[in-house]
């Protein structure tokens, strides 16, 4: 089985996007694109599904609101109601106006941190994780398209090279070693 990988390097995000569009139209499967900043529209070209992270954030937020209200209800209404300045704590409903600020803050707290944590876990971002970008300049000024031989059984990677060069790639290199290591 071939572990061959082709890395096509572009200096311009739009050329990179168009080259990917061209490849996908030809039926070539593009494994990954590494870029120094987001290329708008590339996720559609590579058929990367839309992220559901904002839906998760909504549920974290709802959890926050619930937990916050539950906490305040338990502490100030259920467990030890206090009557301070003639303002007793009778029920959750009568106290709700006073519970709005903290309820809101806990909602934001849990929604924000829940979403950040989900983002870190889903993207495998942890302190000290090894970087996976094959070309160090892809965080600087190169847009790198990665095509793996295994994904494209009937296609010769060598033939793709000239095609990519015609579409604005400045360099195409084989990156066999990295996959051999794994």
């Amino acid at each position, binding site marked *: 089985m071939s572990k061959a990988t082709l890395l096509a390097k572009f200096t311009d995000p739009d050329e990179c996007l168009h080259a990917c569009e061209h490849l996908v139209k030809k039926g070539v499967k593009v494994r990954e694109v*590494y870029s120094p900043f987001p290329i708008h529209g590339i996720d559609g070209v590579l058929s990367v599904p839309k992220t559901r992270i904002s839906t998760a954030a909504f549920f974290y937020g709802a959890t926050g609101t619930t937990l916050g209200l539950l906490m305040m209800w338990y502490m100030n209404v259920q467990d030890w109601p206090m009557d301070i300045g003639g303002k007793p704590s009778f029920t959750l409903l009568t106290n709700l106006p006073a519970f709005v600020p903290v309820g809101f*803050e806990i909602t934001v707290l849990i929604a924000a941190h829940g979403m950040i944590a989900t983002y870190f876990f889903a993207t*495998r971002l942890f302190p000290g994780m090894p970087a996976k970008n094959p070309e160090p300049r892809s965080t600087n000024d190169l847009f790198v398209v990665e095509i793996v031989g295994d994904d494209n059984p009937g296609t010769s990677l060598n033939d793709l090279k000239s095609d990519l060069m015609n579409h604005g790639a400045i360099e195409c290199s084989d990156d066999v070693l990295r996959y051999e290591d794994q």
Partner: protein
Amino acid sequence: MLIESPIRQPLILGDKTYAQITDEIVRPIEGRANKMWYLVFTVAALCALWGLGLIAYTFGTGVGVWGLNKTVGWAWDITNFVWWVGIGHAGTLISAILLLFRQKWRMAINRSAEAMTVFAVICAAMFPGIHVGRVWVVYWFFPLPNTFGSLWVNFNSPLLWDLFAISTYFSVSLGFWYVGLIPDFATVRDRQVVPFMKKIYNIVSFGWSGTTKSWQRFEEVSLVLAGLSTPLVLSVHTIVSFDFATSVVPGWHTTIFPPYFVAGAIFSGFAMVATLLLIMRQVLNLQEYITVNHLESMNKIIVVTGSIVGVAYITELVIAWYSGVQYEHYAFLNRATGPYAWAYWIMMSCNVISPQLFWFRGIRRSLLATFLLSIVVNIGMWFERFVIIVTSLHRDYLPSSWTMFYPTWVDIGIFIGTLGIFFTLFLLFSRTFPVIAIAETKSILKISGDNWKRKTESKYAEVGEHGGHH
């Protein structure tokens, strides 16, 4: 590709390439600091140590070493607290609200403004902590089950709301800031040649690789965090204003406080951002990224929020008169003509009159004028909090208790200490972090870069000549 109107001024000057942007922003991290940096850092660090020493002295001896008395139980410390929290607000405004409004000029300044937020909130949070007197039981702030029966914290109290607001604000700002930093740390990591540096930036960049999926998630997270931070930042100063507005002290018991405090916070925060950026762009040679246009945009926000603050001051006076309450009448009369009138008029002239100079384009675009006025605004906003807090308290309902507040050297020293802490942290930040969001700046190069704008303009001109109708 997006194309921007040629009327808009370019946001990145000089004919930049992506590699140049990386080089010029990362260079200060890799190079050696000059003598000036060490000098300023030493002064800031000494101030910070001095402040920490005085905090230790306060703990050891008691809050009696401050100028507080029976009538004025809140003064210098709470003034500093509100002032620092307010300064923090600009960072979130720039990174969150301007993101939602798709303002591209935020990209050159959001990183350092967010850093400023985090450091300012650290300085702010110290004051309520050290003010409690018995600092060893400061954890009683939190809703913890305790050993003294099941008595809980009071969720009807604005002071507790404030604790939740400030803690949430600090931690969410820190998270938002770090999420944005990860791709830029990866950029720094991938160009390091010194193994130690590479290792450090490898750890802090969390293995960022810049794949399609990670960028997609990154953008979604940034957008939703901005959406969460926007009401959050408005809530924080609203709740800070509740500390005063929910009391029955004349001059504090005001429904106008929340919007008035939020506008004031953004006003002072932008002034602090302007002060810091004017120094930073000079020292780190970033004039082509933080341009006069950026400063002009900030000055426009300063003039808007300054005018809102001015309207609030005058509304307060009118409503005090209109209320028909003699205590309210006296509180405001005393502010403007009493023993603290000098503070009131410093506040009025610094916050209401001086920012009006920014209506003139020449002044708005003058670096020197911006720098001087930004400092004037910061002084004015400090006095605003001082005036609200001290003049309302020092002559309360009981004339026999009327007194004056004078800060002691400990009060002043702790304030100087927080300035030292703030600048120490900011100077360290400027030497170790990319001070401009590299990835975001690159993403607007083809739209707002000087060279690219020229290119698209000439393309347009060509199309026009050949009768490019469709």
